[in-house]
C-alpha cells in the first residue's frame, strides 16, 4: 500500500513538473505584447555618422481605439513607424525596444530597404545583424530606395496596409517576369561574398499622382563590394533580364523604320559562353533564343504579311541585341560584373581564375562581347493583320 501511494505521489509530482516545465512559460510571448514588423528601413543619419533605423509595425488590433477629432476616415493608417538611431542595426532596435511597450517581432518582416545614401557609403558593415539574429529571415527581399528609405516606408498607400507588404507583393509579381527582380537577403549576402561580382538590387522611388502617393520600382541599383556604384533604369534593366534568360512575361518594344512593334515573350532562353583567351582577354558570347508573339503593331503601312514577319523578326532580334549590348556597356563602364562572369570562371576554371582575379576589373571592361539573337514569331494574337497593313482597310 505504501509503495502504491509512493508511486501515485511520484507520478503526480512528475506530471506537475513536466506540465510546468513544458509550457515554455519562461518564453511566453503573447500576440498583444508584440510589435510585428512588416518593413525595415536603414538610412544614413543626416546630421551624424549614425544609422537611422525605421521599422514599420502593424497594429494588431482591429479597431484603432482613438477618440480623436479626426473625422476623415475610419480605417486610416494600420501601421506605425518606429524610428531610432544607432551605430548598428541592433543598437537601434535595442533602443526601440527600450522605449516601447511591446517587444519587436522581426519574423514577419516583409522587406528591407536601404537608403541610397547608405548604399553609396557601404552596406557590408550593417549586414551582420541580419546574418546572426535567428528572427530575421534570409528570404526577405531587399531594396535600395531613391532618397531616404524612411520616406518610402511612410508612404500611405491606398490599396495596401503597409508599404512593406506592398513591396513584397510587387516583387513577387515581378519575379514572374524574371527571377532577377527578387533579390533575397541570402542572395545579397551570397553575391557579396564574391568580391569581384556586383549585385543588382531593385530600386524603389515614391512619386505623387493626383495628390496620391505611390511607389514604383524605378530600376536596379548596382552594388559592388557592398557599395552602390551606379544604377540601371528600367530600360537598361530589361537588357539585364534578357541576358539572364528565363524571362517569362516580358514585353519587347522594337522601333523600326516602318513602324513600332510590341512583342510578348512566350519563351526566352539565353546561353552564355565565356572563353579565356591566351593573351588573358575574355570573350563572352550570348546566344538568345526567343519565341515571341505579336502584342501590338503601330505603323507598317501597306506591308503584306510575309514581309511583315521577316521585318518584325529582324526588328526583334536587333532590339534584343541592342538592349543586351547597351546594358553590358554600361556595366563595363562602371567595371561592375553584374552578369557573374567572374563567378562563372571561378566555378569552372578555378586555377585560371586565381591568376586573373586581381586584374578582373580591367579585364571586365575589356571584354569582347558578341550577342546573337534568334527570334521566332509564333503567334499573332487574335487577328492576323492589322488595319494599317496591306489588306487592312479596303
Amino acid at each position, binding site marked *: 500500500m505504501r509503495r502504491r501511494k509512493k508511486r501515485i505521489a511520484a507520478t503526480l509530482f512528475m506530471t506537475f513538473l513536466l506540465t510546468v516545465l513544458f509550457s515554455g512559460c519562461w*518564453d511566453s510571448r503573447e500576440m498583444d505584447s508584440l510589435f510585428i514588423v512588416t518593413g525595415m528601413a536603414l538610412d544614413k543619419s543626416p546630421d551624424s555618422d549614425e544609422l537611422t533605423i525605421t521599422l514599420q509595425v502593424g497594429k494588431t488590433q482591429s479597431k484603432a481605439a482613438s477618440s480623436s477629432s479626426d473625422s476623415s476616415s475610419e480605417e486610416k493608417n494600420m501601421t506605425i513607424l518606429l524610428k531610432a538611431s544607432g551605430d548598428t542595426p541592433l543598437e537601434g532596435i535595442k533602443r526601440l525596444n527600450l522605449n516601447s511597450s511591446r517587444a519587436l517581432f522581426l519574423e514577419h518582416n516583409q522587406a528591407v530597404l536601404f537608403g541610397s545614401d547608405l548604399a553609396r557609403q557601404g552596406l557590408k558593415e550593417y549586414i551582420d545583424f541580419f546574418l546572426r539574429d*535567428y528572427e530575421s529571415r534570409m*528570404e526577405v527581399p531587399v531594396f535600395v530606395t531613391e532618397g531616404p528609405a524612411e520616406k518610402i516606408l511612410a508612404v500611405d498607400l491606398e490599396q495596401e496596409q503597409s508599404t512593406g507588404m506592398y513591396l513584397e507583393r510587387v516583387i513577387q509579381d515581378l519575379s514572374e517576369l524574371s527571377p532577377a527582380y527578387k533579390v533575397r537577403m541570402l542572395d545579397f549576402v551570397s553575391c557579396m561574398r564574391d568580391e569581384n561580382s556586383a549585385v543588382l538590387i531593385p530600386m524603389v522611388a515614391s512619386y505623387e499622382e493626383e495628390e496620391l502617393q505611390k511607389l514604383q520600382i524605378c530600376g536596379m541599383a548596382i552594388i559592388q563590394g557592398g557599395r552602390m556604384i551606379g544604377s540601371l533604369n528600367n530600360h537598361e534593366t530589361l537588357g539585364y533580364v534578357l541576358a539572364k534568360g528565363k524571362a517569362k512575361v516580358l514585353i519587347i518594344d522594337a522601333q523600326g523604320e516602318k513602324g513600332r512593334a510590341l512583342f510578348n515573350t512566350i519563351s526566352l532562353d539565353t546561353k552564355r559562353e565565356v572563353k579565356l583567351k591566351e593573351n588573358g582577354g575574355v570573350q563572352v558570347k550570348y546566344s538568345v533564343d526567343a519565341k515571341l508573339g505579336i502584342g501590338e503593331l503601330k505603323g507598317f503601312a501597306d506591308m503584306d504579311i510575309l514581309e511583315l514577319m521577316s521585318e518584325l523578326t529582324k526588328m526583334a532580334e536587333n532590339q534584343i541585341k541592342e538592349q543586351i549590348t547597351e546594358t553590358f556597356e554600361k556595366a563595363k563602364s562602371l567595371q561592375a560584373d553584374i552578369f557573374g562572369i567572374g563567378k562563372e570562371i571561378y566555378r569552372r576554371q578555378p586555377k585560371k581564375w586565381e591568376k586573373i582575379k586581381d586584374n578582373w576589373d580591367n579585364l571586365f571592361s575589356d571584354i569582347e562581347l558578341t550577342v546573337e539573337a534568334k527570334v521566332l514569331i509564333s503567334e499573332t494574337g487574335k487577328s492576323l493583320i492589322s488595319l494599317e497593313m496591306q489588306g487592312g482597310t479596303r
Partner: protein
Amino acid sequence: MRIDKGRISGLQFMFLIACYYQASSLLTAFQTGVTKQDTWIMVLIGSILSLPFLWAVRTLMVTFPDKNLIQILSEVYGPVIGKILGLLYLWYFLTVASLNLMDLADFTKGTIMTRTPSPVMAAVCILVASIAVRRGIRLVAKYGPLFTIIAAFIFVLSTLLVVNQIKLEHYLPIFSLPPKKYLQGAHISTTIPFGEHITFLMIHPAALLSRRDTGKYLFLGFAVGALTLFITTLRDIGVLGNTVDLFTVPSLMTLRLVHVGPTISRTEILFSVIFMILLFFKITVLFYVTVLTVAQLFNIKSYQHLILTVGSLIVVYGITLYPNPQKHAASAQEVEPVIWTLFELFIPLLTSIVAKIRKLPKVKEA
C-alpha cells in the same frame, strides 16, 4: 543483457541504428565549415571509409552475441586492461551523450525559447529520457521505427520542397581547396557522424539476432542513415551555395527558404520538430548506454537507481564541456576526430583482431 532483461527484435535494432544515424544528419555545420561546397564528397568518402570499421563491429557482435562492449573488452584483454578500457569508454559515452544533449538544448534555446536557460531544457530532456531508460531497452527502442519513418517523411518532403531552388553551379568549383582540408574533412566525416557504431555494441546483446541478421541489420540501418546525411548535405549545398559555411545550422536555413507558391513557406518548424525528436532519441540511447556501462563496469545488478544520478551528471558535465560555440566548432573540427578515432576505429579493429588471434570466445562445456 545480464543486467537488462529486455529483448528487442532484429528489426527494432535496425530502426534504432537508422534513427540514430538520421539524428546525426541534422548537425552538419562542423563539416560544412571545413570543406564548404565539397562537403557532399566528404560525406560520401566518410561513409565508405567507415565501412571496414563497421565490419569490425559486426565481427565483434557475431563473435560475442550476448556480451556487450564492456564484457567483450574484459574477455579479450583480460580483467585489468579490460576494466581500464571500459572506464575510457565510460568517459566516451558520457561525453558523446553530453555533447548531443547540449546540442539539443542550445538549438532550442537559440531558435525557439530564447530566454529559457539551456540547462533547464537539458534537464527536462533527461527527465523524460530517464523514464524510458528506467524501463530498459524495450522502451528505448520502441519508438525507433516510428521516429525513423516520420524523419524519412519529413526529410523527403523538405527535399522536394526546395528542389526548385537547387542550383547546380553551387557545387562548383570542385576540389579547389587545399588538400589538408580534404583529409580533415574525410576524417571528420568518418568519426563524427558515422563512427558512432561503437554505441551499438552495448545494445546488441539485447537484440534477438542470428549471425546473418546481425550484419544485415547493422548495414541496413547504417545505409539509411548515411543516405539521409548524404542527400541532406547535397540539398543544403545546392540551395545555399557559397553561404553554406556561414550558418550554424544549415538545414534550418534551407527549410526557411522554402517558397512553393504563396502558401507553402516558413517550413522551418518541420526541421525544428524532427530535430528535437531525433536528437531526443539519440540522447535516450546514449543515456541508456552510459547507465548500462556504469552498471556493467562495476558489476551492479540493477541499474534503476543509477539513472537520475547519471542523468544529472550528463547535464552538468555537458555544461562544462564547451563554454562557447567558437571553441565548440574549432574543437569539433580539429580535435574530436583524433580523439574519437581511438575509440571508434582503432580499438574495435584491434579488439576484433586480438579476439581472432586468441580464438575467442572459449567454448565452455554446457
